[in-house]
């Protein structure tokens, strides 16, 4: 380095895409697509005006929720939903743990890994409502179809996140346990489980309240629970009853949120 004068004085961060033509083409293309997509969404303003009234009625119903006149149905719906939530979460977690272990590349072998990832992908590919429609067709209306739906959906969520968590664990701890001559099960029990257990519990609790909320949605397609009750209330324009149901759902979800937060804090 002899030329002191040649030392640059200006510095710019190198652009992410080096070719300026390509860079601008991508930016303008994205912008154009956005404009066109908004243009295709048509709004029927007459219908909106008409709907505003109905919306207001619905919102107003929240100020006078009716817990009493349909209490029998509401109580039955919630009992069914809570049973569905608990049983589906327990079943889902029990199935997810082995699939999550098999789906973690660092502790699994390739064929098992591919099968487990396949199951996870399948479960994630179908939204709960679609799975619920299938299971209702297979097993008839009612909470059994709902429980299976939620358990199946739990696999896609829990097994995937568990597998990813396992892939991110500290390999040195696993190596140390392997070096003692431990079997595969002992390796999982001593080297992997302590590292992922708090998160597994946290995810299971989180899934518990997702399953509860989902139980309200899949009830609408006939999979039992509070969703069925809610759907009936809407069909009858009983917004006060619907409001009562929604308020109870909100209360339960909040309760679950606080409880799981508390448990998670205690665990880590």
């Amino acid at each position, binding site marked *: 380095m002899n030329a002191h004068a040649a030392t640059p004085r200006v510095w710019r961060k190198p652009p992410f895409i080096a070719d300026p033509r390509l860079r601008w083409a991508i930016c303008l293309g994205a912008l154009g697509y956005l404009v066109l997509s908004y243009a295709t969404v048509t709004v029927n303003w007459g219908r909106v005006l008409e709907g505003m009234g109905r919306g207001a009625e619905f919102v107003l119903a929240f100020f006078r929720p009716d817990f009493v006149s349909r209490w029998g149905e509401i109580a039955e719906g919630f009992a069914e939903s809570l049973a569905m939530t608990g049983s589906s979460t327990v079943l889902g977690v029990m199935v997810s743990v082995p699939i999550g272990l098999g789906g973690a590349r660092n502790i699994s072998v390739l064929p098992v890994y591919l099968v487990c990832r396949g199951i996870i992908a399948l479960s994630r590919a179908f939204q709960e409502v679609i799975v619920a429609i299938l299971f209702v067709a297979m097993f008839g209306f009612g909470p059994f179809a709902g429980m299976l739906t939620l358990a199946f959906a739990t696999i896609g969520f829990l097994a995937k996140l568990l597998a990813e968590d396992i892939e991110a664990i500290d390999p040195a*701890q696993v190596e*140390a346990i392997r*070096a*003692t*001559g431990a*079997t595969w099960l002992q390796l999982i029990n*001593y080297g992997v489980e302590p590292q992922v257990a708090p998160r597994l519990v946290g995810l299971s609790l989180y899934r518990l309240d997702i399953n509860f909320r989902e139980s309200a949605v899949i009830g609408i397609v006939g999979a039992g629970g509070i969703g069925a009750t809610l759907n009936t209330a809407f069909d009858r324009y009983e917004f006060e009853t619907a409001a009562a149901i929604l308020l109870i759902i909100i209360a339960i979800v909040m309760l679950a949120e606080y409880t799981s937060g508390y448990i998670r804090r205690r665990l880590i």
Partner: protein
Amino acid sequence: MLKVENVVKRYPTGDLALNGVWLEVEQGQVVALIGPSGAGKSTLIRCINRLVEPTRGRVLLGGEDVTALHGAGLRRARRRMGMIFQEFALVERLTVMENVLSGQLGYVSFWRSALRRFPARVVAQAFALLERVGLAGFEDKRADALSGGQRQRVGIARALLQDPRILLVDEPTASLDPKTSRQIMRLMTELCAERRLAAIINMHDVPLALMFVPRIIGLRAGVVVYDGSADDLTPERLTEIYGEEDWTVTTRAKARRAAAADDGEGAEDEGEADGAVRSSVAQDEARMGGT
């Protein structure tokens, strides 16, 4: 007791980590494995217990070919080789006792280990080991609550509970301060002497190795380039292992060690600028002589 015969390791990336390593370690012999970063030290000790699969060559432990073993046979061989790690590799969320007891995983059934119901004899041994490494009363602390030196002591206790015939030690002091490093080295060499245990210790710190270990093996680019006593490790030898550098200071530490060993406490009186270093070397010698 342990023989490594022409071990070659080529990683899938194409890197040739070991290029035909030969070495032999007798029962009760402690060996320091030195060499620059990337020379293959970690790979070599992991090829011995097959945490890394050697590409070619054989590893014989007590006459048995470890490289030919599978499944249960390999696990049985592994439990005779205790391993100690640079970053301690304790299971952070388990208690000290669980970490120590995990050294017995190769001996007990899954259910015993899963329920933490280890045989009473083993639990008694674990308590005795904790006391020996200076951690009596720490059994219910979580591993992540300990300091570096304490963690390494747990690591040592875990390795010893395997009832091994050899210790494979990967940079045991690289994460520790100089004083703790010496304490850990002293503890390990004492324990090896007490139990007639062989050990291969990977080290970056050449003066520390020279202070505690009688036999040095130098590894460069996957080949053994020095195998001899610590006394014969001259600056020329160090250049051969590490490349050109001024090694006189490194070997002077060695010379001091010899001097300290010869006239014992007298070395302290001559201390000038580096008197502190010198006296602690002398103390180490005195302590080692006392055990």
